């Protein structure tokens, strides 16, 4: 009996999966790959598996993590090969390792998330003005935002500590759209969504970005406290 941790990518074809869809997809892929997965006890046995983070609908990512318990010893190369043969185009396992006993869970060791966003600007927004806004925004020390707490209640919270950096890049030949690199920090397994950061900029500076579901959001990297 051991635990396998793996790193995977999600690309455009499967970016619209919900967290539950993706869970179901992995459960079925484990069975198609004929891997000796461990199941929970009880009437409704479920594979013992989890993801470091729940991915939101629309997000693509070069760096996600998952873990699964297996009931027999399994070589990490074999896990990787069999899973990749079973996964559909759009999900790919890039790395896997068999964990030692007592390895802490992935979700507790997330440190930072590096995002790349493609965002449309409101019509009258110039790149120069946007640059100033971002600079000014990052100088703030207290940025209040309504946020749902763990109990599901809306509370006002300072989101500034979650934001490590924001950088805006102009795109060749596109004046109405920019690339944004955003690094967000996890504190006590809590963070803020990049779209919410854009909303908060909008509300403080009278509108800069068009925040709607067509924003393209990509995770470039997820930094863990321990080396993967």
């Amino acid at each position: 009996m051991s635990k396998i941790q793996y790193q995977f990518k999600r690309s455009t074809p499967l970016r619209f999966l919900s967290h539950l869809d993706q869970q179901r997809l992995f459960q079925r892929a484990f069975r198609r790959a004929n891997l000796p997965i461990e199941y929970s006890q009880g009437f409704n046995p479920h594979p013992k598996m989890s993801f470091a983070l729940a991915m939101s609908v629309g997000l693509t990512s070069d760096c996600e993590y998952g873990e699964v318990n297996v009931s027999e010893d399994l070589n990490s190369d074999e896990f990787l090969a069999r899973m990749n043969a079973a996964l559909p185009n759009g999900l790919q396992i890039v790395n896997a390792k068999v964990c030692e006993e007592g390895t802490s869970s992935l979700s507790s060791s997330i440190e930072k998330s590096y995002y790349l966003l493609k965002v449309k600007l409101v019509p009258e927004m110039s790149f120069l003005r946007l640059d100033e806004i971002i600079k000014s925004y990052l100088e703030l020390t207290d940025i209040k935002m309504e946020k749902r707490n763990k109990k599901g209640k809306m509370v006002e919270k300072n989101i500034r500590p979650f934001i490590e950096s924001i950088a805006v890049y102009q795109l060749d030949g596109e004046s109405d759209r920019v690339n944004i690199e955003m690094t967000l920090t996890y504190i006590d397994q809590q963070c803020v969504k990049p779209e919410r950061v854009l909303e908060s900029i909008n509300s403080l500076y009278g509108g800069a970005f068009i925040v709607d579901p067509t924003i393209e959001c990509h995770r470039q990297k997820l930094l863990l406290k321990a080396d993967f």
Partner: protein
Amino acid sequence: MNNYIEKNILPLVTKPITYLGNEVNAVHKTPHEKMIRFAFAFPDTYEVGMSHLGMKILYGLLNEEADIWCERVFAPWVDMEEQLIKNNLPLYGLESMMPLNEYDFVGFTLQYEMSFSNVLNMLKLGHITLEAKERQEGEPFVIAGGPCAYNPEPLSDFIDFYVIGEGEEVILKIMESYRRWKKTNGKRIDFLRMVAEIEGVYVPAFYEVTYDDATGVIKSFLPIVEEAPKTIRKQFINDLDASYFPEKIVVSYTETVHDRISYEIFRGCGRGCRFCQAGMIYRPTREKTVSTIQSKIRALVDATGYDEVSLSSLSTGDYSEIETLIKNLVDEYEDQKVSISLPSLRIDSLSIEMLEEIQKVRKAGLTLAPEAGTQRMRDVINKGVTEENLLDTVHTAFEKGWGHVKLYFMIGLPGETDEDIEGIADLGQKTVDEYMKIDKEQRNKSLKVVLSTSSFVPKPFTPFQWMGQNTQEEFKKKQRQLKASIKDRKISYSWHDSGVSFLEAVFARGDRRLGQVLKKANEKGCRFDGWGEHFQLEKWNEAFAEAGIDPEFYALRNRDYDEMLPWDFIDTGVKKEFLKAEALKALEALTTPYCPENCSNCGIMEFKKGWKCHV
């Protein structure tokens, strides 16, 4: 189009992943000039359509042919529909995202009447000319099949041709004709003439209907071209065991209505319930062997990774080797944690023992369908279930820890009296009494009995095809009466909207004059009538009024036994005289035995040369 939709439209709609056609086992081919492009259309949502077995069979079967690419298309949900219209984009087949009007065939499966408005809506969204007679050369052939094709008339203005009966063999003959027709550079009409000669194919445009001016009933129904036969014989496969079933099925990413492998273990049913259309049109009963079932399920589990297999049929407990089959499957999949489920079980204690053995059920809900509240009424409908059966079953279930029982009934059955309505409440009470008989330590801590009624809809090719439906007022009165008869707070009552059932009855027994109503309803925006929140009876009433058609003529009228019915030109193998004899027996509450026990000569044995039931 592909990329534009992905980037700009799908992010704005619910369940965007269901509009991409990139699921595990979805078939993708490289198109070429001669490839036949077939869009299998399910006129309801993705979640409903993806649970449908027939689509899986025909999708697999057609895609086995190298020169055919069969894709899927479902009714887009209202938010997606809005986006398509707003962006002037046509509805498309999922796999290739090609506009619907560019396919060679668009084939609808008609599972229930309330999806008819979606057929029209999908054609319109697919930029296909609505009426078959106005379709241009180069437009797709719009074809249809499924149980509601047994009365094809209401949709016949919009469908180029129908397949009556089981499609597995006929569809390949149609494809063969198409290949030949393509080589001749023929006209649409030439192809229709070719397929009209295939047994089981019905081309509505080749028939003329006249009506009696005084009564409005059909006076004559005759073919007007020589290729069109006078009678359309339904098709069925003799050797179901050897028939095609795919080894790979598409696995949805989102949760579907039946999110599991559904494997058909037998077709047909010999119980002979008089209200049940499936029980008549799918005759004869044909079983698959245990070994075929096991090997096919093995392949399907390996190819899909599903954690549940449902053994589907009209009455799964009637499979001759059900116990062996279940035992084998449970043994085989125990380690892999694949569970086996049994839909449509009849009411007997054996069923409970089987459920107990196989299911991971949390003893939460047990659903049983006595269908009627009194023994007399159960005999009228030939349900073949006694009160004793039911009470024994719930007793066993309560002993084993179940605490939630749902009982299904129909109201508005032929010859129904107040006593029959009160009998439903009474049966609910007796169910509660059974629970009370069980020791407190043994039984579930809480009890909930749900009585649920649907409104009876008379269907073609059943012994009740001549019977009028109750009026909506009568249904409402009966619902109130039943509600008032329930005394125990452990019993709750739920019922179906009678307006929906009324419309269902109109279309179930309608004729081709209803085409104009469908067209008007479509213009008024009717679709998703099976979805409570989108059903607009007022709009339908307007459509009937504007078309000058009285819906009650179809739904409420008792029809004479010698009246020409709109579907009389179809021969299902079950003789009309048999249905009539059954209808007359129903009036006297006389029952008919289960087929294997005693053949009642329904006609299916003479229908097809060489066919023998139960050998």
